[in-house]
């Protein structure tokens, strides 16, 4: 396959960036999108140019490192996959592909296509946990039966990989799907009830502090989420916040 890549290049956080065009040839449809970028980078390096920097690690769709806004969509045109699992067979010979970083003020660009998503970490520091010491003296795992339904729903919320596609896709750069998923996981389990009030209030407060936009329920996040996290989680977080505020 022969392609024209239009890639965002930015030296570092302080510099202004721009789109640079790279023609590329000899791409196999069996390559993953990142392997296609590997080919480009090997070429750039041997030609004495700087390779394109992008985040990646596990390359099996679970670590959440890879990002990329490909032809106007987070993780590209395929559904339920991360960029590392996107394969070139989804593109046609001769295509022009725009590759940009995930954009949001809360995700500043570090270099080229790499952004700083530590805002997500800070939201988790504010309450994304259950306060239990790792003493090993907790009660038996089967002491509190949890309905299969609740456990499965909590699991569905917990599959979030923290990649930030929701923020990138949202026209408002809102992080509600990410935060909603974490709040939901704990809200659905009995273990999470004790701290439920503080948790949702603290996490939402931190989310706002980080400069994410407001949710306007466009649903773009749900569609682009590589793990299919449901909008229901946002509704649940809204409910949790209402409950928390009524309790005071």
């Amino acid at each position, binding site marked *: 396959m022969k392609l024209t890549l239009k890639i965002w290049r930015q030296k570092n956080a302080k510099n202004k960036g721009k789109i640079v065009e790279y023609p590329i040839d000899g791409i196999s449809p069996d390559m993953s999108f990142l392997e296609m970028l590997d080919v480009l980078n090997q070429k750039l390096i041997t030609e004495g140019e700087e390779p394109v920097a992008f985040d990646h690690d596990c390359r099996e769709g679970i670590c959440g490192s890879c990002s990329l806004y490909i032809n106007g969509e987070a993780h590209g045109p395929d559904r339920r996959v991360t960029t590392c699992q996107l394969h070139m067979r989804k593109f046609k010979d001769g295509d022009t592909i725009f590759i940009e970083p995930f954009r949001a003020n809360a995700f500043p660009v570090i270099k080229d296509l790499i952004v700083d998503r530590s805002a997500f970490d800070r939201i988790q520091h504010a309450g994304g946990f259950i306060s239990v010491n790792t003493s090993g003296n907790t009660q038996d795992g089967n002491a509190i039966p949890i309905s299969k339904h609740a456990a499965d729903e909590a699991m569905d919320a917990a*599959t979030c990989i923290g990649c930030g596609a929701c923020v990138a896709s949202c026209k408002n750069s809102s992080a509600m799907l990410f935060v909603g998923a974490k709040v939901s996981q704990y809200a659905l389990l009995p273990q999470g009830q004790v701290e439920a009030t503080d948790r949702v209030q603290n996490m939402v407060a931190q989310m706002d502090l980080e400069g994410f936009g407001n949710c306007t329920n466009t649903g773009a996040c749900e569609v682009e989420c590589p793990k299919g996290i449901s909008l229901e989680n946002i509704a649940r977080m809204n409910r949790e916040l209402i409950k928390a505020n009524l309790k005071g």
Partner: protein
Amino acid sequence: MALDSKIPKGPLADKWTSHKNSIDLVNPANKRNIDVIVVGTGLAGGSAAATLAELGYNVKAFCFQDSPRRAHSIAAQGGINAAKNYQGDGDSTYRLFYDTVKGGDYRSREANVYRLAEVSTNIIDQCVAQGVPFARDYGGLLDNRSFGGVLVSRTFYAKGQTGQQLLLGAYSAMNRQIGRGKIKMYNRHEMLDVVVVDGKARGIITRNLVTGEIERHSGHAVVLGSGGYGNVFYLSTNAMGSNVTAAWKAHKRGAYFANPCYTQIHPTCIPVSGDHQSKLTLMSESLRNDGRIWVPKKLEDAKAIQNKTLKPTAIAEEDRDYFLERRYPAFGNLVPRDVASRAAKERCDAGFGVNATGEAVFLDFASAIIRYGKEQAHVKGLDENNDDLVQSLGKEIVKSKYGNLFQMYEKIVDENPYETPMMIYPAVHYTMGGVWVDYNLQTTVPGLYAIGEANFSDHGANRLGASALMQGLADGYFVLPYTIGNYLSNDIRTGPISTETKEFEEAEKNVRQQIDQFINNKGSKPVDYFHKRLGKIMWNKCGMARNEKDLKEAIEEISALRKEFYKEVLVPGDADEFNEELAKAGRVADFLELGELFAKDALVREESAGGHFREEYQTADGEAQRRKEFQFVSAWEYKGEPKDAQLHKEELVYENIEVKERSYK
């Protein structure tokens, strides 16, 4: 230096309890004055950092990823073992201990493994309390599945993402401590050296991967939870960034490196599709619960399939060779990983491989679909002889069990595994070898600890499925935070460790020198070029089957490649910026040394055991042949060049288990 494993005296079952009771404690006020450095934030590092902080120590945690949540533990799919015996199928601490020692081909340390089995149950309780959403049955109780190499159901799981959920659990425990200020988290930092002061590990040198800054960090102890070194093979199921650098630098500072040749080759990975391949994708071992592995019986059928002139579904049942069921009737498709991998390789080497490269075997769900379909039809009172109905009901069940894995396969291979059998081939997955540690998880450098995959201690020559998660969390949550107290109790009067000493200076200078060397080298070939070549040597000569001639060649070739690397490597960009190629160069440089030691270790070990298979040492029917005289741990001391490394032996004593031939027939 003689190796002292410091195994406590007394009966096996009491060792850990009595040891814990005799460990010196550090009082809470003093803990506040003690700093501990944790490198790596996977299951082991993350859980250790969280627990140490809970205990009151000041923890500095480092990871090269942009967040602790991205450590590669996250990719573990199948599950975590624990001797809970919730299924009432006769499981017990002893049985888990026994299975693990046997699965490790009698090359692991009894006392460590028993402790692991003992604390395994705590892990489940702990994780449930943290909100890890383990799978549950309709009664609301925890569900289990079975895994290779054992005859009980003791594996707890969270869909096909158990590693992710456990890691997020450990990450949440870390988050709580980061929020409280007890853990200072350094993301996108790579450890490039250990600093040893007066014979004790007192700090590390790191590079900030964003700014390129070289930093000195001091602590009273250093804990390595930096994972395994499978990427020495270039292609593996490890993450792209997984590396040996932290462990290797520790080795160069005096920590012995144990059993480097013990590598796990996982049988169920998606086969290599071409030269562009950057990594391999694992399909959970749980697939072997229902999938049947086969190749054609007739060579002409295999050829036809390789040329794509014949469809696998067109091969009649009697022309299929279910080679695992044939060779190992007792365990069938659920034999341990090393056995399954080798059997697949044997068939492919004989020409029966089923993809274009001849390096793949089938994993077939057709009979599982029919079995489940009939079962469902029966339950629902429908016609069990209606093939279409049975097919669709069966596919539903298979989908509910393995849907996400099937989807992943389809995305990568572009074939529908519900209609045609999957193709799988073994790939490097885990390294049982690692930094040598004693019972307290301390390396041969006082104050330097290694936990999780980074150490060597619990899995012997082969790891059983769902045991890596167990070991990582056991080390981090329940073992290291206690055993480290013994060492730190001597440090309560030490006060803060200064980074303005000649040791730090020297270590920093070394690090800077290497970086400058790479940047200024201006060779002709990118780092990956060398990494790929190293991988080819490793896979062809130190892979699933090894022999003396190949290993000797490998040592020479790796040594030559290393020289070429330093001469010809091309690292673009500068040192004081984000520069992935520079980071990769440092990692590959260490792999190029480790690879040679790996081959040397494999050469010295003149027996077959677990993941280490020497062609010269096999039984008449092709099984691994252990030799009594090799019942030891090889611990290598750094002496300059890898080929000069000096071997120390830790004899393995089995008092509570009879060393038998490992049979799964």
